[in-house]
């Protein structure tokens, strides 16, 4: 077998392992869906009435809640990655002729899939609450693509955070900034209603163009500038996360 196909087969075995872990610990999936739903109810039913946006608030908030769903689910991944490193099983894999990256790609793929499932659930709940998007089939595909790419990028960053952390607890905490960042974006209120300093931060942080690109696609009115910025940020974060993860993995090896 060539190196590439060996690595692919090893990754598939590790992926199967990670999928079994996720299915046996469904609380992580449940948790990743429940919290964003609570946030959705809070913002749409309780707070949303007070915000002045041009569209029904559920239509405005759903893209931001999707991004929040992605970032909220990451804690489980960083904890699982760190757990792998601190338990004996990693040493077994390291003494075997197993592709070094396979252990990490398994986590990345499972995280991406889990994010997509959670986002699908959130969109379902949004529809139940009166979400009325104007997206065409192609634009829906674009939404799925952006969510997948952002999840993939965030997953690599999270794997790196999990590898860099000293304990599983610290690894779980390391993703908290990623949960906080959507609040400092245009997720729940338009950035031009914010104070100057905060607004500048909001406009230049990655979540804002990501949310705006989803908002445009879902409304059937995609903005190529935001979408391009979202893609660029995602690719950048993925590359950074990958490089950091691989170097941390080698250091811990």
């Amino acid at each position, binding site marked *: 077998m060539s190196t590439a196909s060996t690595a692919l*087969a*090893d990754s598939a*075995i590790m992926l*199967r*392992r990670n999928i*079994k*872990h996720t299915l*046996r*610990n469904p609380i992580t999936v449940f948790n990743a869906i429940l919290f964003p739903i609570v946030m959705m109810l809070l913002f749409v039913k309780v707070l949303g009435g007070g915000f002045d946006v041009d569209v029904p608030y559920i239509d405005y908030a759903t893209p931001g809640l999707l991004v929040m769903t992605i970032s909220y689910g990451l804690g489980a991944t960083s904890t699982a990655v760190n757990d792998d490193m601190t*338990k*004996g*099983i*990693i*040493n*077994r*894999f*390291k*003494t*075997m*002729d*197993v592709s070094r990256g396979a252990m990490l790609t398994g986590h990345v793929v499972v995280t991406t899939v889990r994010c997509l499932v959670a986002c699908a659930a959130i969109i379902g709940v949004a529809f139940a609450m009166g979400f009325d998007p104007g997206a065409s089939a192609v634009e829906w595909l674009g939404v799925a693509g952006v969510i997948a790419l952002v999840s993939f990028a965030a997953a690599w960053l999270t794997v790196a955070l999990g590898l860099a952390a000293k304990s599983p607890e610290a690894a779980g905490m390391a993703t908290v900034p990623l949960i906080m960042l959507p609040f400092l974006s245009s997720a729940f209120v338009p950035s031009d209603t914010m104070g100057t300093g905060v607004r500048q931060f909001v406009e230049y942080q990655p979540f804002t163009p990501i949310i705006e690109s989803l908002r445009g696609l879902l409304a059937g009115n995609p903005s190529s500038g935001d979408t391009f910025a979202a893609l660029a940020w995602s690719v950048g974060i993925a590359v950074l996360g990958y490089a950091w993860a691989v170097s941390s993995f080698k250091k811990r*090896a």
Partner: protein
Amino acid sequence: MTGPPGTLADMNTSAIAVSGLRKAYGDKVVLDGIDFDVPAGSVYSLLGPNGAGKTTTVNILATLMTADAGLVQVAGHDVVTGTKGVRSAIGVTGQFAAVDELLSGRENLQMMADLKRVRSGDKVISGLLERFDLVESAQKLVSTYSGGMRRKLDLAMTLVGNPEIIFLDEPTTGLDPRSRRTMWQIVRDLVADGTTIFLTTQYLDEADELADRIAVLSDGRIAAEGTSDELKRLIPGGHVRLRFTDPAAYRHAASALREEAAKDDETLSLRIPSDGTQRELRSILDWLDSVDIEADELTVHTPDLDDVFLSLTERTTGTTGTTVSHSNSQEAIAK
């Protein structure tokens, strides 16, 4: 120092060849130049107190860690330049069970079979489950297993794919006596099949029981190396013990042997130093007859590995230090 091992000539006979191995963590020298050679198909035991560098040695041989200096060949591959070759030839069971808690026992073995691309994996897995007495718990999650069951599963996972060299780092620490014996039997069966075993242990009886050759590691050096009999002969400590039931007979013997024997009034016994040879034993018996001493029980004690271990690890930490260093241990054993 010997020349680099692992040339074509001895590649067929040496499963592991180590020379000049050094490793330090910062200022702390853990391995200070060790050399040894493990013939294929044998059990080699590294014996040493806590912190002597046993696990460090295993980690370097098993490619988990890199050495600061020295040549290490495992299964004919250099651990630095032939890492891949080493990894596909070895199996490692470390001190802490390397099992996946969220998978069942069977799934753990299945994962190993998949990663090692074992053909007819189901047959191999069923065989291992049976051999390690894990059939009943095969479908249960490993998180519900007891410590002993995890240890057994760990070793079973290591055996998937029949590695030619197996590293066992303190494999029976924390096991009950029955499980220890089961583990010993498994090791013997593996050796019978031609597997090479590299075993670290703190239990001297374990090394005595299993190992063809034993190296005593102390202060980062190999203090002595040889078969367990050879090691036992390295140190004095053998004696003949005479035990009496009648206090009067004991007192008579004690006064007759005042010079030669150590007394133990509580157990009514006397100890006469002896090397345990037939000739010396006969002369002791003749002499006892001549002074009209008749003990109720006579036993011959040879030094056990405990004595060897304590004496060797003490000597190298003492100020004289070099009594039995690696450079002359071979000669010491040879005589």
